[in-house]
């Protein structure tokens, strides 16, 4: 398969990149790891005339953990996420998502920004990031703005980003003391598989061990990663136990809106949302009670 023709830009700073995007608008496309974009270009689904590589912008590769935030640069690779101690320690569900993404070859190239920017309903990183309450930082010549990931995805391949904007970093707020998250994805085989269902759950407990806050995010069962709102409601104000998590799982199944497709039936995916919700809540609860 041959690539369509395009011009190639390689800016060294975010500002330079923003200038190129401002000039070409919708004719341009940002190229990060290329593991999503190149496939679409070879299949002629996308034929951008201008490719703006952001791989040579050092500031996009930073990871910074401060008292109130963890900031992950958009070009931080998935392999970096797998290996980072800070991610493993603070955002273990994200690390889990990263470890389950693609293959070693893909992980070496794929970036966190590209995983979000491609807005695939089955992607591995949005559910854990949304469960942690992450937000996207977007830059353009007219300045910077912050969009919660909850409001970032609009549909398969569509996001709140404007054509002249770059996603520069992901911000995850520091987690409350007794909180934790879990992530599980299932596919047909053990690796390099488009997920059938993936779920991330986050809970925060108060001093008395009551669930104060809960976020459950389900992938593959809607046009964008979905929050399981009624499951979250069931959890909040309750003491965690297996029976509660099973009820929350059943509610999450009802919150999901999967479709039959060649990968699997809606009925199976709904049932799996229930199982994965319960299992990720178990992990989240374990983390919440075992975090130092």
């Amino acid at each position: 398969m041959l690539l369509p023709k395009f011009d190639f830009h390689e800016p060294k700073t975010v500002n330079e990149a923003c200038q190129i995007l401002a000039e070409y608008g919708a004719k341009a496309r940002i190229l990060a790891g290329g593991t999503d974009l190149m496939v679409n270009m070879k299949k002629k689904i996308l034929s951008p005339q201008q490719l703006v590589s952001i791989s040579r912008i050092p500031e996009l590769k930073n990871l910074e953990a401060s008292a109130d935030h963890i900031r992950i640069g958009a070009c931080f690779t998935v392999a970096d996420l797998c290996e980072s101690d800070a991610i493993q320690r603070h955002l273990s569900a994200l690390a889990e998502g990263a470890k389950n993404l693609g293959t070693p070859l893909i992980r070496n190239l794929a970036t966190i920004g590209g995983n979000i920017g491609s807005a695939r309903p089955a992607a591995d990183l949005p559910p854990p990031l949304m469960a942690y309450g992450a937000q996207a930082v977007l830059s353009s010549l007219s300045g910077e703005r912050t969009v919660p990931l909850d409001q970032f995805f609009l549909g398969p391949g569509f996001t709140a980003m404007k054509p002249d904007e770059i996603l520069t970093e992901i911000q995850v707020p520091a987690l409350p003391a007794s909180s934790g998250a879990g992530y599980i994805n299932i596919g047909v085989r053990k690796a390099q598989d488009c997920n059938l269902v993936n779920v991330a759950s986050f809970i925060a407990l108060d001093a008395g061990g009551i669930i104060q806050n809960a976020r459950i995010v389900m992938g593959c069962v809607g046009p964008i990663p979905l929050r399981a709102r009624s499951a979250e409601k069931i959890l909040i104000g309750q003491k965690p136990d297996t029976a509660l998590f099973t009820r929350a799982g059943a509610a999450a199944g009802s919150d999901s809106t999967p479709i039959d497709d060649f990968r699997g039936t809606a009925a199976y995916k709904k049932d799996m949302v229930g199982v994965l919700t319960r299992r990720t809540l178990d992990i989240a609860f374990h983390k919440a009670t075992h975090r130092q």
Partner: protein
Amino acid sequence: MSEYTVINSRAVRRDTPDKASGKAVFIDDMSLPGMLYGALLQSPLAHARIVRIDTSKARNLPGVKSVVTAAEAGLIKYGVSPARYDETLFCHEKVRYVGDDIAAVAAVDLETAIEAVSLIEVEYEELPVVLTIEDAMAEGAPVLHNEYPGNICAEVHSEFGNVEAAFANCDLIKTTTFKNKRQDAAFIEPQGCIASYDHFGNLTLYSSTQVPHYVQRTVAMVLKLPIGKVRVVKPYVGAGFGIKASANPLELSACLLSMKTGKPVKMNYNREQVFQYGRARHQFTHTMTTGVKKDGALLALKHVCYLDGGAYSSFGIATVYYAGSLLGGPYKLPNMKYDGYRIYNNKPACGAMRGHGGVAARACWEQQLDMIAEELKISPIELRLKNMMVAGDVTCNDLNMSSLGMKECIEAVQNGSEWSAKKGKLPKGKGIGMACGFFVSGAGYPIYRSDTYHGTVVIKLTEDGGTALVYTASAEIGQGSDTTFAMIAAEALGIRLEDVRLESGDTDFGVDLGAYSSRQTLMTGHAVKEAAEDVRQKVLEVLSKELNVPVGEMDIRNSLIGFKQANVDFSGLRTRYVKEHRGWTDNPTDGPLTFKEAARMAYLAIGSIVGTGKYKPHELGGKYKGAAVGTSPAYGCSAQIAEVTVDEETGQITVDKITDAHDCGRAINITSVEGQMEGSVSMGLGEALFEEVKFDNKGRVINADLAEYKIPTMLDMPEVKTIIVESNEPNGPFGAKEVGEGAIMPTIPAILNAVYDAIGVRIHELPLTPERVYMAIQEAKKGKKT
């Protein structure tokens, strides 16, 4: 210690360093001066009449050198078996599947060729599409080929013994229906070729093929060329698994375009086209009824099978026969009745793939045998051992088990997996299961009726005596055959492996039917051995004259000449040799006479030393119709035990371990045998758990890539414990027989039986995706409640 000096060891493969370092040359690495690039116009519709083809815009595009359609190619029918030649190079009246070839273009570069293809105008009149066996067989269904009413491509009806009479004597009769799914072989290298037509009318075709010989014949026949002017050369090939075992439209188109333009023409399939071309494993629906005595003695099998064939025959006639005949063994089965049907429909043709015709049948039956064992309260191993054939037994359909280490294989996996400590003692969700299987060591007959030798080999010694050059037309496609034949040549001639050089895969080197039906080690191996012995004899005869020692009192080993008598004086020979090599630093001074010296003397005496070898199977059993499919000079066999964990809440299966024992006769290269065993497990595991080529309702493949067509990854592969069981096959060179295909037979049923052991639910349809397993568990739960 082995009695052999070269074979029966772990030799480093001859292709390994080149492949590991990227030096190995595949079609994609090759180019010739002035080379053009070709592209195919393939049908976007599954069934349509061609009303009009207009190529004028394509011809006028700058850079386009030739555009060919059926008008230029002619309408000579070809295919695999002459009994079912049902394809023409390009469609003329109608197209029969999405991907059917309509035209080809040669241009200065690939971009131009692809653009030109898009400029060819075809007016179609759409015809109703049939995509399933049921639709194709329905009353009034549209017919794909007028010559085959009812869309029945082939049917087989055979009975050995008397099944109904036997059923009357059975204590238990069990019927099950089983379905696998259409496979893709997922070889790493898509088909590709370069054709080059010279000024003298000679055509050389470099192609990624398993069968240079059959491709040569098909090209000559379809393009009406004298066979002596067609040469097919196979560079390194990234596997084939049966799909590359016949001539394809790329090869024929590239040849035609090269003839038209006088320039070399290169053509490749992309991955999507590999799926579209198909020719891999059929979808089979087997219904088997087995009757046994209370003690487990097998009495009869009644078997009906439908093959979802696709638009053309390809290997299909052989497939429909194999699907029945390969159940004749390895168990003693006195009565067997088979009705097989291969049905045409508007999907890509299916063909031959590893374990040709026998894999789904074996899976169905071995699972059924476990069900029978359970009902009779006999252990699955005991049931199998009770009915097992031994060497020398002949099946009811006349397959002669000239060697059969089946019992040894079962015992090896039983011990190797600690079966007795596990079977029946594992916690819920964990299971263990076993199965057996066997396969031919080469088809007894060529694909076309002929008295041809199946392999010829020439070995020539270099005139200065250092090296044996082996020339074979056989096909190294990644399985390791080049190394195997170099080892056989070295062993039979008595020289070191490093003193052999081997060239293969070129029709100019002789006849070899190629790499399919697990034939090369046995068949080409015989020819290599005979040629090596011929060379050996010629050298020893000259020595005998020169030294006055009888041939029988000399031996060649490790590239040295040995004499039975002490004190044979060969100093005269040595002096002559040294005189001819004045100034050389490697001249022999003392020590035994070397092969190099002997070979040089032989050359000086009688000229170039050339030995020839040939092989064709002896008269094989079976006089009934279809006996040619299944009969073989030898059969390899194997047993496997699978251990699995099933997540009952999600249906996900993890195969934890496979213990695999295979009887390959004498192992020539032990590492290669193990490689085939592990590869077979991986392929069988994929078919068992994940793989299925899927279509939309217009007949288009919807998962034509390796992201959505799921073969096992490293993480899906279990630990594989390989145990080689050696028998001494009387019809094999040094006692060797197959391992390439037979090793896949037990994998699927072993996994099926292990999954049942883990969850207590039988599943009769592949693949065992998490969803299918989960739904089966849910169904069973519902069944229990009501």
